[in-house]
C-alpha cells in the first residue's frame, strides 16, 4: 500500500494519530502537499462520505474520520502558508442572530470541509451584516445560514436582502438549513438553496458553485 493509500485508510478508520504521523512521513518524503491533500486526506473523506450516504457507516464514524482529516490538514497548512489550503470553494457559515444552536451548523461545516471546501465559521448569534461583510471581504461564493427557531428565520431574510441591497446577490449564493426551514421556506425568503442535512448540504453547495 502506498503512503497516500495508508493515509486514506487510517483516516477512514478514524486513527487521527496515525494520520498525523503518516502525513508527516509523506511530507518528509517530498510528496507534494497538494497530492497528500487530494489523494490521501480528501480521497479518504470521499470514501467516508459515500459510505455514510449508503448507511454503511454512521455519524460517529464520520466524525472520527473528520478529526483524523483535520490532524493531517494541520500538518499541511504551513506548506500552503502563502496561498492557503487549496479548496473547491469558499463558504461563510454561521447560526443566525438570536440563535445559539450550533451542532447542526458544525456538522454541516465538517462535511463541507471534508468535501474540500474552505469554511469560514462565524459561530452562532451572527448579525446579518457580519455574514455579508465577511463573504465580500473573503471572496466567498456561498453564505450558509442555520437556525433551529421559527423566531429567528427572519434573520435569514435580512441577510438575503442585504446581499441584494449591496449588489452581491448574483455573485454570492445563499443556502439555508435547520429544523424550521424547508425547501418551501427557502424559496419564499429568496434563498438560492436549502439543505435537509449535512450530506445534502455538500451536494447542494456543489450545485450552487457549479
Amino acid at each position, binding site marked *: 500500500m502506498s503512503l497516500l493509500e495508508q493515509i486514506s485508510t487510517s483516516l477512514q478508520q*478514524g486513527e487521527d494519530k496515525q494520520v498525523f504521523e503518516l502525513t508527516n512521513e509523506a511530507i518528509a518524503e517530498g510528496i507534494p502537499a497538494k497530492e497528500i491533500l487530494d489523494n490521501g486526506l480528501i480521497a479518504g473523506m470521499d470514501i467516508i462520505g459515500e459510505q455514510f450516504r449508503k*448507511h454503511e457507516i*454512521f*455519524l*460517529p*464514524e464520520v*466524525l*472520527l474520520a*473528520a*478529526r483524523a482529516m*483535520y*490532524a493531517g490538514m494541520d500538518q499541511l497548512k504551513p506548506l500552503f502558508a502563502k496561498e492557503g489550503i487549496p479548496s473547491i470553494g469558499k463558504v461563510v457559515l454561521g447560526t443566525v442572530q*438570536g*440563535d*445559539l*444552536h450550533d*451542532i447542526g451548523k*458544525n*456538522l454541516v461545516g*465538517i462535511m463541507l470541509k471534508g468535501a474540500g471546501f474552505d469554511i469560514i465559521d462565524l459561530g452562532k448569534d451572527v448579525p446579518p451584516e457580519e455574514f455579508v461583510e465577511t463573504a465580500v471581504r473573503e471572496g466567498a461564493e456561498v453564505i450558509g445560514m442555520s437556525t433551529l*427557531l*421559527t*423566531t*429567528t428565520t427572519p434573520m435569514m431574510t435580512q441577510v438575503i436582502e442585504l446581499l441584494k441591497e449591496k449588489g452581491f446577490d448574483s455573485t454570492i449564493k445563499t443556502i439555508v438549513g435547520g*429544523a*424550521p426551514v*424547508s425547501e418551501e421556506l427557502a424559496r419564499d425568503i429568496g434563498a438560492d438553496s436549502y439543505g435537509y442535512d449535512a450530506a445534502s448540504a455538500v451536494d447542494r453547495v456543489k450545485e450552487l458553485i457549479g
Partner: protein
Amino acid sequence: MNTIVQFELSDILPRPEAVLQDQGVPGDRPVPDRIDAVFTQALDIFARSARPTGTISELTAEELTPIFRGEGENEADALLARIYHRADNLALFALTMGSEVSANIEKLFADNDFAAGSMLDSVASLAADKASEVFEARFFQDLSSRGLITPEHLVLGYSPGYCGWHISGQKKLFEYLEPDRIGISLNDSYLMTPLKSITGLLVSGRKEIHQCEPHFGYCSSCKHRSCQERLARLVS
C-alpha cells in the same frame, strides 16, 4: 408554591440505545467498539459536568390563562387550549442540565473531538427529556399522596413551541416561574441559556382530556410527532 429540585443523575441518564439511535446508529447491528468508546467518554463527561436542576409550581387554570395566551401568537386551535380547562391539576416547570455540559460540548468541538461532542450533545438532550419525565412522575406521585389521582388519571407535559402553543409563550412563563433562580435565562428570540433546558406545563386529568388526533393545520409542518408517544401512553 415554587419548589426547586435537584435531579438524581441515575434518574435521568438516557439508555445507550436511545443515544446511539439519536446519533443515527441503528439498533439492529452490533455497535463498533470505537463508537462504544465515544459513548462511554460522552457519558462520563456528562456525569461529571451535569447540574440537573428544576423548578416547579402549581397553578390554577385561571392563573394559567394569561400565561398560555402569552404574546397572542398561539394558533387558534392550539392543542392545549382544548385541554387545560378540563384538567384537575396543573403545574408549570423549567429544568436545565446546567451550563457546564454545554461548555464541554463546545470545547470538544473546538478540540476537533467532534464525535464525542456530538455524542455528548445527544446524551444531554435525552437527559433533559428524561428529567421532564421525572417531573411528570413526581407530580403524579405528589397528587396521588394527596388523594387527587384515580386510575383514570394521567399526567402529561406540554411545552411552548409545540402543538400550536407559540414559543413566545416562554416570556410570560418566565415572568411567572422565574427560572432565573436556577440559572436559566431567556433571550429576545425566546431561546433559553443553557441550551439543554426545557419548560412546560404538567397537566393532570382524566385520560380522555389528553386525547387528540394530529390533524391540526400546524401538524403538517411538525417533524416531532410527540403526540404519537402521548397517544401510546393513553392506551397503556
